[in-house]
């Protein structure tokens, strides 16, 4: 079974959400499906984890929200990256890169 997103560290979920918004605005379901898609099904973020994260990140000021119409003409709440959010994304991505390189090194060492 694919691991639940809740087993991810909070920062990692944030990173995934930020990244999914890097290419444009999405609503909650859209973000969830996008993450599922790009991680090839590894991470399935449930609403119970997604919504708290979205609201927290909105309060941090990294994303902003507005009500709009979905593809199926239903009302949905959309999110987009703010400038601070873009900066956060860059910083987090770099940090993640460093961490994964370090772990890879550790694993390779005999």
């Amino acid at each position, binding site marked *: 079974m694919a691991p639940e997103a809740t087993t991810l560290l909070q920062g990692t979920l944030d990173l995934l959400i930020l990244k999914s918004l890097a290419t444009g605005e999405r609503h909650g379901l859209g973000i969830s499906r996008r993450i599922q898609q790009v991680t090839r099904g590894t991470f399935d973020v*449930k609403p*119970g984890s997604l919504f708290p994260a979205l609201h927290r990140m*909105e309060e941090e*000021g990294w994303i902003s929200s507005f009500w709009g119409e979905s593809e199926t003409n239903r*009302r*949905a709440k959309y999110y987009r990256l703010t400038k601070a959010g873009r900066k956060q994304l860059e910083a987090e991505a770099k940090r993640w890169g460093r961490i994964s390189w370090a772990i890879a090194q550790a694993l390779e060492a005999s």
Partner: protein
Amino acid sequence: MPFLAKLRSVARNVFSPQHAEADVNEEVHAHLELLVQENLRAGMSSEEARRAARMELGGIEQVREQVREQQLGHWLHSIISDTRYGARQLRKNIGTTAIMVFTLALAIGATTAIFSVVYGVLLRPLPFDAANRIMAIWEINNKGGRSHLADPNFDDFRDQNHTFEAMAKYADFDGSVSGSVQPIRTHLAYASADFFKVFRVSPMMGRNFTPSDAKKGAAPVVLVSYGYWRQYLGSSQDLSQSHLKIGNAVYSVIGVIPRSFQFPKDAAMWLPTDLEGENTSRTSHNYLAVGRLRHGVTAAQGEQDISAIAQRIHATSSEQGDYLLKDALALPLQASLTGSVSTPLYVLLGAVGFLLLVACANVANLLLAQAAVRDRELAIRSALGAARKRLIRQFLTEALLLSVIGGGLGVLGAYAGVQGLVALAPQNLPLIESISISIPVLLFALALSTIVAAGLGTFTAARATSGDLRKGLVEGGRGQAGSQGSQRVGRAIVAAQIAITLVLVIGAALLGRSLMKVLEVNPGFRVEKIISMEVSLPWAEDPKTKANQGLFFSNLIERLKQIPGVRKAGAISNLPLQDGGGLPDGQFLLMTQNEVPKTMDGFAALFQQKDRLGSADFGVATDGYFEALGIPLIRGRIFNEHDGADSPHVAVISESFARDLVHDHWPGQDPIGHTIEFGNMDGDLRLLTIVGIVGDVHDYSVDAPPRPTLYVDLFQRPRSAMTVTMLSDAGTQSVTSAARSILHDLDPEVPTKFSTLPEVYGASLGSRKFNLTLIGFFGITALLLATAGVFGVMAYSVSLRTQEIGVRLALGADSRDVLSMILGQGMRTILVGVAVGLAGSLALTRTVASLLFGVTATDPLTFAAVILLLVGAALLACYIPARRATRVDPMIALRYE
């Protein structure tokens, strides 16, 4: 900016939560719809689509709750909503809430009031600079007790120590002061040169003492207190004009001591010691002493130092004998001043702590009963997603609300209570002026309320949320309410209350009986109708002046006898039972006329013979004194007109003294006719012939045995300060105003102070009455609370079992059977409480043994009476609900849901 954004969010969440809520709600529903759409596009039927969507979402409410918890300011919002909800709950049962608040207010208020006394007297540091470095120094006599210091001993301590940076001797006494706006009789202190150095006090005006001020022949100077300076010197800026006549000398005022310094207590001025030279004897214990430890030196080191010096004196002095010090001790000044009251005060604190526990137990039971009713509410909230932690927080909030309101009211009550306590307390309670509701006391009250809240809240929360909450949703189910566990806890609490109350009430009863026994003691003299009048003439040294003073008193007494209503009048050097303990004691020497030595060396040799020595109380009196106070003459005679200054000096001794003398020194003989020398007290070395034996007088205190006493004739051994006692049938007012004018006629410069023996007697029992009043109050309150507690738990238990009782009655049980079943259960709880309380009392009442008189700490009569009282009250409290239980109509009971 992220920070601004956060602030906006907090504001929005706290102040318009509905808007945020609605938004989230909408979003979650929208998400659900999108999921449904997705599923429909994937080909599911509309029902399947919706169901699948629901499952993937989780629960709508759960998601909303999780978002809510995530929000900034959520904690603040939930605290506010918890508080509002809690307040609503409390208001719903306003009656019970009022009872709980009142109970808590009473208990917290009483505890705060008592703590303010304990803090003011025992814990608060003395108002001196680095007060914990100031030590009180005592000599230790051969009986192991503390005594004042003799001048040469003090000098050795001061000069030979390595551990004190300053040391001073001091004494306080009452004296007459004139030369200012008005002559008064007031409290004065003698202090050696370094006295103010020890306390690090500088005069606010003028100069301090120097060593040259406190030695023989120095020009007399005096330092006055701020109060005296303001009231009697008119706050004069020029002290060089101020001279005060004290005793026989005129003192120049050299400085004013700041208002904040008050040691010894109530001293109006400080005179230097040793103006007449030091007393060279190492056995004349005249002064108290204090010292300030050097920086870095511990109290233990200081004590060892002084002790070593004392032991050296003991080993090498030529003045060997019973009165030479054996050792010395130094202890912190605060402990020295308050040591005697620390046990009673801590006992009081313990007692009020017990009351607090009983009160909290009652409130806990009430809260438990309420919580049981709220099962359903708890179950619903839990189903809606409230975490257990949240529910516990709710109970804590309600308990905190109760405690804060109750505590607040209690503190307000404590303000009044402390004033009452200070008025009621024995006026000689050390540091009584430091008792007030100060910041530390308020902090204590706050901490206490918080602890009570935490305890009550956690307790009820634990009970209410244990087990599966959803049981409460089951129709007709009782959830936690009827559970055995809950009832057992209630009963255990009641048993604990009964135990604690038993200890308290037994303590109060023992103190009460002690007081009654003390009141039964015959003090040895008449108390009613005696008016006393303190008269102090200036201190005289030469025989002529002294003889004149004797005449003065003779005149005064004669004229006082003329006042209508005054039947008898006499004078005594110190009134019995007066604060300060009556007559002073000293050393006497037994010798016959032909043993009288011709030289001082001869005397010294006699003092070496231990079997000639002894100690007794010494009083100067007129024959009228014994008549006025009704002290019986047992044998022989009292003083008469034949005893003049030139006739052989006579003395009258107390009955127990006579018995001891006969037993120890003159077996088989009549003490009348024997001679004794008691010059240690007034310097007159002439032999005294015993001419009479009078009854014993409880001079020191009513609960101590009478001490051996010897009285000499005022007209043979004149004294400047005497207290005249008058036996009068007329009212106190008329007699005192007549007496005042008589004294004024004789000498307008002599001040006087009036009192009555009933007042003095009552005051001597002051601390006993104080302790009894307080502990009695706690005991009665605890008894009422515990009885209410028993009643409450019993009634509740019966109401729960109505159905069961109905069944029993319907099946043919006698109402008597039901009664005895219920009562039996109640009795079990009560008996357990009594057993635990009994064990507790046996263990704890020993700590109050020092406060008892005439009863032992395990007096069976008292114990039995109190146990009966308590069991009786508790049984009554059980009986009423039990009776009600028997009246249950089985038909109604069976239908009860």
